[in-house]
């Protein structure tokens, strides 16, 4: 994740440093001279020690403060690094505001600039990215059957993700049933059925074109009767801008009353990540996010953007084609990998 961002931040920081520190050196030198002059007159130090001492004090005193225009200029480097890492503009604005507050109009010591920028960035990211909860523990503590619904736009990897999650739950001795509620896309039922038979999990299905909410209802009834632990509902991919399909999703939620609503998003998405996550959250409500295809792209900006708009944690990253390729999202690791 966040390929090259570490280096880019370093570069941006040094660019910022080089472009501004010159500004206040003169002032600091004046002050240092004054101070040394005073001490010479008071007889504290000798004449020949003067130049070294001036340099020493100058270094200590060199601070700078930025006005807004200067800040915009120096932030640009950092903004570019973030943009290249697929962080949406809206999220960059938040980082900009946080940094601005720390830097504009304040006296910052030269030696501490890098630290200040990194610390602010770290704090901002810590605020944006949330710690994932333990899914298995939550399911074990929750009511029975524990109903999880998965949704997202077309082709984001819902069905594969459900199979991966079911594999994880099963390994933790939780019994599952699939609800094949994607009754629209061709062969979606067969696809889930394949996973069901490989993983040896029961599946409730109906014909194509039938009501997805009814399938979910049947699956939950089935789980109740058989005393199964978890119901995993697969839904058809839908565009967040399609009102009718979003209404259908609301209906599924009304009928199934899910304990957990998981948004399955793709890590390749750019600025639209913000819109997609926001719309799904607003209309259906997102409890947690699973980010797929993290092995294709290592930029990681979508993770930051989606967390920022939904304020919901990312539980897992999908990192491959196998069932085991589901990594728990480690916030600390991500931040550490940035060298922050």
């Amino acid at each position: 994740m966040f390929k090259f961002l570490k280096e880019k931040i370093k570069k941006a920081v040094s660019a910022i440093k080089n472009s501004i520190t010159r500004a206040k050196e003169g002032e600091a030198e004046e002050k240092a001279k004054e101070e040394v002059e005073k001490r010479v007159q008071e007889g504290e130090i000798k004449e020949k020690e003067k130049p070294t001492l001036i340099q020493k004090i100058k270094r200590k005193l060199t601070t700078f403060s930025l006005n807004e225009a200067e800040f915009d200029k120096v932030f640009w480097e950092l903004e570019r690094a973030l943009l290249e890492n697929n962080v949406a503009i809206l999220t960059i604005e938040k980082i900009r505001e946080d940094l601005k507050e720390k830097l504009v109009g304040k006296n910052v010591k030269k030696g501490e600039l890098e630290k200040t920028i990194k610390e602010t960035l770290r704090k901002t990211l810590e605020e944006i990215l949330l710690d994932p909860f333990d899914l298995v523990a939550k399911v074990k503590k929750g009511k029975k059957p524990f109903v999880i619904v998965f949704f997202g736009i077309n082709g984001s990897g819902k069905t594969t993700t459900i199979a991966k999650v079911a594999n994880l739950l099963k390994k933790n001795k939780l019994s599952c049933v699939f609800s094949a509620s994607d009754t629209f896309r061709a062969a979606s039922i067969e696809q889930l059925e394949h996973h069901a038979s490989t993983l040896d999990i029961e599946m409730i299905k109906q014909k194509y074109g039938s009501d997805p909410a009814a399938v979910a209802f049947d699956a939950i009834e089935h789980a109740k009767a058989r005393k199964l632990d978890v119901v995993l509902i697969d839904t058809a991919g839908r565009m967040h801008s399609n009102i009718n399909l979003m209404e259908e999703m609301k209906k599924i939620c009304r009928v199934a009353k899910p304990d957990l609503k998981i948004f399955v998003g793709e890590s390749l998405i750019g600025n639209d990540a913000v819109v997609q996550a926001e719309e799904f959250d607003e209309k259906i409500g997102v409890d947690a996010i699973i980010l797929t295809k993290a092995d294709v792209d290592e930029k990681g900006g979508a993770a930051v953007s989606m967390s920022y708009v939904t304020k919901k944690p990312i539980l897992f990253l999908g990192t491959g084609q196998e069932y085991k390729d589901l990594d728990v999202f480690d916030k600390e690791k991500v931040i550490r990998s940035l060298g922050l």
Partner: protein
Amino acid sequence: MLGALGEKLKAALKKVASAVFVDTKLLDELVKDLQRALLESDVDVELVFQLSERIKEKARGEPKAGITKREQLIKIVHDELIELLGKEKKELEIKKGPYKIMFIGLYGSGKTTSISKLALYYSKRGHKVCMIGLDTHRPAAHDQLQQLGEKIKVQTFIDKKEKDPLYIWKKFEEQTKKFDIVIIDTAGRHDLDKNLEKEIKQLNKKIRPQEVILTLSADIGQAARSVVEGFHNNCGITGIFLTRLDGTAKAGGALAAASITKAPVLFIGTGEKPQDIETFDGTTFISRLLGMGDLNALLEKTKIALGEEEKEKLEKSLEEGKFTLLDLHDQISAMSKMGPLSKIAELIPGFSKVKLPKDLMQIQEGKLKRWHHSMKSMTKEELENPEIITSPHIARISKGSNVPSGEIKEMLKQYKMVKKFFGVTKGKGMSQKDLQKLAKKFKISL
């Protein structure tokens, strides 16, 4: 939803058009606005900077005689955007025997769906098309292709048991030779996966398709460039099929990435159903983004949807000044063949500027369906001469079709309006003002 990028670009250009002086300050502002608009629509950061530099460079030159500095600047931006986001339209030249089109792309980018769209597109135009499924990795990929094939009535070759795609190809190769066009489905992959990379290279070598089409999702971010370049280096892409254009994505990243490979965007996918496909023309697309509309695309659609016979009939009855509910009915069914209203509205010049309420189009579609039902409960006399319909008629129609009488009244009102509208424009063609008037009326009538 390509409009959003257009809005931003339009706003930037409007600034130029309305500025008092065209100077460096204005140029800097314009470049900044453009950068922001393009970055927000996911265009590769480096490409954006190259573009800004070029615009600045070119704007320094003196304009040719007869052209103002302002016009020159707008033209520079227009040309650069076309260079960045799209080239001129290219149509596939289907050659004899059989013409092989192979689809490649990332997982979930919409390969199989797009293949069925393309198959329907060409079979509607009289070609003999078949599809062959070589995706042996994703579960049920073959079932998906088969079900889509049945839906659009196109022959599909699959082998559910075989794991070697090359073997499947060899097995069916002879049979595909009787078709004009063979469309080949492959497994989703990414450029970092070495095994799949080897597989696709081998397939490409053995099958020797005339076209290799990459499906690319419109919402892809900064990864677009590396993805497109990766696939291009492996297979040599000859064209791009842009998918998921019915969402809110601005598609800048995908378009710009496509542009680097010199492979043109051939088609765009604009919905979930097999008929949701459009050809793509970079030049008109940019004009459309900048609010100039695209009559050509609309005309092409109407040509297919309205059979020649129906069209003549409609023209004739319009000329005679007769426009019956039956005609409205024909129009509505022709329109539903064209695809959702929202897409058609986008194509009409002027409509993209008229701010239609966000949900209007989708509501309108549901309504059209119910109108259709109510017409089925009318007598032929009522359809031909709607003026005779009074409230007892409406009550009966409403009962028969289970459509609320209010909506039937509304339909009659709409009918009168359309009739009047055609009267207005008869012989003159539609002017922008007329269209805006129509749009306004649409809003009022809801």
